[in-house]
């Protein structure tokens, strides 16, 4: 199954914020987690995660720190802020509304009838 670009883009922010809400993490780990959670259906171009993370940082939803281990390379970790948690709650509400609406449509099935077009302007 291939998920369209628009849907991937729309879901990226809540996904990242949701993952960071579980605890501090770094780019590659976030990406792997997205992959696992979606069962491989959500295909992200790896690099594009970083502009998104930087945008969330600029907006104040996440904050970042460089951790330098004694041995090895330093790595940039991201942590969600209080404002980010609020944003996540807001996004959840919005997505719940969308999902509920969609579910309504899927479940209604045949009970939804097309509305006949009104007969305007043909009397001329």
């Amino acid at each position, binding site marked *: 199954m291939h998920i369209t670009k628009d849907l991937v883009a729309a879901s990226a922010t809540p996904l990242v914020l949701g993952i960071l809400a579980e605890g501090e993490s*770094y*780019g*590659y*780990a976030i*990406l*792997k987690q997205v992959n696992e959670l979606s069962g491989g259906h959500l295909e992200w*171009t*790896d*690099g*594009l*995660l*970083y*502009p998104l993370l*930087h*945008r969330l940082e*600029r907006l104040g939803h996440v904050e970042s720190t460089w951790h330098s281990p004694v041995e090895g*390379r*330093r*790595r*940039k970790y991201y942590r969600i802020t209080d404002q980010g948690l609020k944003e996540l709650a807001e996004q959840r509400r919005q997505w719940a509304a969308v999902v509920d609406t969609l579910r309504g449509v899927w479940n209604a099935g045949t009970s939804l009838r097309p509305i006949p077009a009104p007969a305007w302007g043909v009397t001329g």
Partner: protein
Amino acid sequence: MTVDSNNDLEKQIAEWRAYMRRRRELHQTDAEELEDHLRGRIADLTEAGLQADEAFLIAVKRMGSLDELSREFAREHSERLWKQLVLTGDDGGAPSAAKRRELPIMIACAAGAALAIKAPGLFGVDMNDDDSGFYLRNMGLFALAPLAAYFAWLRRVRPAVVGVLVALFALGAVAVNAYPMGIDTQTIVLSTIHLPIALWLVVGVAYTGGDWRSDRRRMDFIRFTGEWFIYFVLIALGGGVLTAFTVGTFSAIGLNAETFVGNWLVPCGAVAAVVVAAWLVEAKQSVVENMAPVLTRVFTPLFTVTLLVLLGAIAWTSNGIDVQRDVLIIFDLLLVVVLGLLLYAISARDPAAPPGVFDKLQLALVVSALVIDVLVLAAITGRITEFGFTANKTAALGENLVLLANLAWSAWLFLGFVRGRLPFGRMEHWQTRYLPVYAAWAWIVVLVFPPLFDFA
């Protein structure tokens, strides 16, 4: 993974990193973050059984195309597309030792300039008394000596060159102060105008670090002059706003700040701004597009049209040029502007490029300025033979001839270039070789004119 394949991988990653660093949208830290990601992906793929080079290829592919990546980074960090003048350090990387040295030297020289202009006050030479003539005469010295010191220090010029610089500044100081010129004589006004010009070219010697015979260094100095002028004007505009607010806000609380502004803020600020502007030009040299050539591009067509219309009007109405007192000065300034347009077009031009429309436009500009100037000279010679020479007239006439000679030969070289007979380098060479002529003329006016015209 064997040591060998590990080395190969490191090499591949290093190449990839270098490739990333070429993108202005991606900063050092971004590249580092992406590299960490790349390494994470490669490690996972090799663990799953892939060879290092296969893993590298897949990891790079999954990272996305560099174009797309830098576009996204640019969207998020749009400020990076605007070259920024960062005063301390560049995106986290450590600035070079030379760059670190620049700032303290600049501050020292600017502070020295500000102190120096107040120093005569300690000896009772007051700014707003009858002594104001002293400051006027020595303006060039106060403003440019710190600048020369700044470049001499920055470029670590040889002691011999320092000696020459000191001697020339001393010569200028002696000339303007020792000659018994009255405050409202023509000669003192001429000295006041020409000493800064002469000393500016002395600053050029310091700017080139003593390598003042080199054409390339001289051209650099010409570029520097244009940019410095623009920065100085910008700083002066900012200073004007600061002054207005200082006077306005203090008068609102019933304090008179005008004495402070007149005696401290303006003179100290102006001499310090000379050094600060120079430092800014140097600091932003590789960061911001040069401004003088841009202005040249805008104004060359406009000036050309104006001069051609003026010529047409002279021919149409057959009105002679009305030779008033100041008319020579105006046409001198016109020649200076035309020469400036020419110089800054040259300074930014790729010498290897073939002649284009802009070059023809420039030729038209120079030729029309020459024709107009010849008309002016013809008109003025009659007047001078009638009323005799004064210091002002002689200076204005001399300047006119110096500029005329330059432009006439420039026009000839330009014509050769446009017709494809001469290389453009000749033009550059001519302009840089001509610089000592300006220096010589300015020194003549400063040193020879006062005794020649009896200090009148």
